[in-house]
């Protein structure tokens, strides 16, 4: 699999890291058994809670359970059903659209903040860094609850703010606005975490490079976009992958906001919410497994395509 080098495509050290970075030494066989001993506890958890559920989900997805017929083998029926089920397809379409809009916005915000914080070193900058990161320490459930309150016509400040201009306050969770309303919640929740990762990568760059660029007559903007951004591109790819995986399995925020959204967040809003409801509201575990498995495959393929695409561009950048 090409994943390892792709995640950190532009950092040559990663290739060495994935290799173990050392020569084969004598006494390897005995040492090898000891290596497995260190890995064994994790390997057991990996097999039981990752490989087994995946295999089991695939197995379950090949069967159907009817009241009269009992459990019968159905082959790929659940998948043909899923890929013709408007509920599932609309959910997939929503999270794909959501990822395509959200991720660039989130990346732009976190990259801009990280570049600013890297350039100025005042006490206020340090304070801002902490405050912008703070939402990461707050569970997504509570982040969604807080924004739900802020959006609310009863609790929130929107009605007052718009009241000043004698205008009706918009409801950010109405069917027309829910896309933006959720985008705001997720950006608030995660931008600070991504910013810290980029910032840490920026801090790891050798400052003498900037000195050399400055002597060659590079402006601050050129230093930022021609030197800093390419040098942290592996961090950018890493957080893009995280954001992509997280967005495609979107669940917590919409399901927390659903009760106060007046039905603009439906039980098939995202694939994960749909699978949850199929499993726990309709006890339809076979179909839910098919949806979970299909979603897992979609995410895996999406991330893989993405890594493949960025690896090519990454090599040009570096």
């Amino acid at each position: 699999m090409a994943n390892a080098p792709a995640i950190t495509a532009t950092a040559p050290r990663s290739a060495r890291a994935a290799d173990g970075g050392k020569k084969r030494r004598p006494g390897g066989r005995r040492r090898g058994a000891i290596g497995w001993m260190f890995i064994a506890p994790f390997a057991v958890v990996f097999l039981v809670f990752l490989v087994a559920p995946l295999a089991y989900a695939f197995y379950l997805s090949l069967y159907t359970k009817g009241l009269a017929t009992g459990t019968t083998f159905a082959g790929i029926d659940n998948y043909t059903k899923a890929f013709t089920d408007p509920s599932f397809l609309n959910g997939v379409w929503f999270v794909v659209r959501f990822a395509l809009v959200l991720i660039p916005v989130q990346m732009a915000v976190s990259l801009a903040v990280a570049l600013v914080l890297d350039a100025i070193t005042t006490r206020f900058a340090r304070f801002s860094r902490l405050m912008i990161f703070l939402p990461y320490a707050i569970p997504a459930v509570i982040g969604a609850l807080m924004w739900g309150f802020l959006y609310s016509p009863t609790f929130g400040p929107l009605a007052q703010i718009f009241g000043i201009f004698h205008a009706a306050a918009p409801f950010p969770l109405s069917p027309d606005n829910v896309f933006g309303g959720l985008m705001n919640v997720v950006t608030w929740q995660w931008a600070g975490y991504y910013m810290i990762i980029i910032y840490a990568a920026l801090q790891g760059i050798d400052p003498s490079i900037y000195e050399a660029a400055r002597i060659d007559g590079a402006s601050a903007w050129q230093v930022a976009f021609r030197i800093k951004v390419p040098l942290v591109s592996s961090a950018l790819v890493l957080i893009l992958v995280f954001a992509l995986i997280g967005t495609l399995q979107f669940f917590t925020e919409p399901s927390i906001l659903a009760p106060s959204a007046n039905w603009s967040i439906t039980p098939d809003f995202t694939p994960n919410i749909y699978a949850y409801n199929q499993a726990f509201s309709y006890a339809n575990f076979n179909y839910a497994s098919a949806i979970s498995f299909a979603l897992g495959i979609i995410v895996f393929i999406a991330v893989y395509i993405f890594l493949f695409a960025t690896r090519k561009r990454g090599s040009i950048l570096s």
Partner: protein
Amino acid sequence: MTTASLGRTGLSTARLTDGKRRRRANLVPHLFLGALVIYFLIPIWWLFVASTKDVHGLFSGSAGALWFDKNFALGANIADLFTYNGGIYLRWLGNSLFYAVTGGLGASALAVLAGYGFAKFRFRGRRFFFAVLLGSVMVPLTALVIPTFVMMSDLKLTDTIWAVILPSLLNPFGVYLMQVYATDAVPDELLDAARVDGAGEIRTFFQVAFPLMRPAFVTVLLLSIVGTWNNYFLPLAMLSNTQLFPITVGLGLWQGQAAANNGGGHSLWGLIIIGSLVSIIPLVIAFLSLQKYWQGGLSIGSLK
């Protein structure tokens, strides 16, 4: 930084104008940061202000949503929160803490062992397993929840603490971070020296390798504790006994109830607000006080 070091070599007057120019150049970025800080703090400020209001102040207070009502009811709200429904809130808080600490410690212990094993030993199947491990980072963990639920329910383990703790032990990305860190931070020569001196493999790990891997361990520990503390989908699917709920699922339950009956009887909205505030305090304090650990550690995955 560069202007400062150049300015230092010049005359004192040059340094002065240089400083002035720097201050003016810094104004725009500071305004940008200031606006962002306000944006990121508004929900938290709102939460704090709303926590100090009684039911009347919350729904029809005169001061607006972002300022205090004349009746300061923070103490009464906290007392209400801790006694409502036999103090179930404190139980949820305790559960969250328990799940986060056991799940986080367990996941980090497994990760540090496996990361060390991958980095410092060569054995058959190592490359293959490591490639599978990296591929698994791309598997959305929520896709595993429903099949894990069915497996657990066959074993009669759903609705127990194990249904939350055991799946939380899985942290492939943590293993990857540990492997990357151990490869560079633990020199082979040191391990060989310990072995030559007669230390067994286990002793070599605990006395030589582990102390060197401690910064990465603390980072992975912090990340897994936060991950388990914040988790919602897994406990929501696994648990139906409210006594076992973590705080996230508990507050989600109250939110559903409050929206459904509009606070009939007891005002759940007030409890949700004060409950949210109290529950974020521990992690916020942890992050503010443990800065030097996570700030250094978060770069491990991206730098190397």
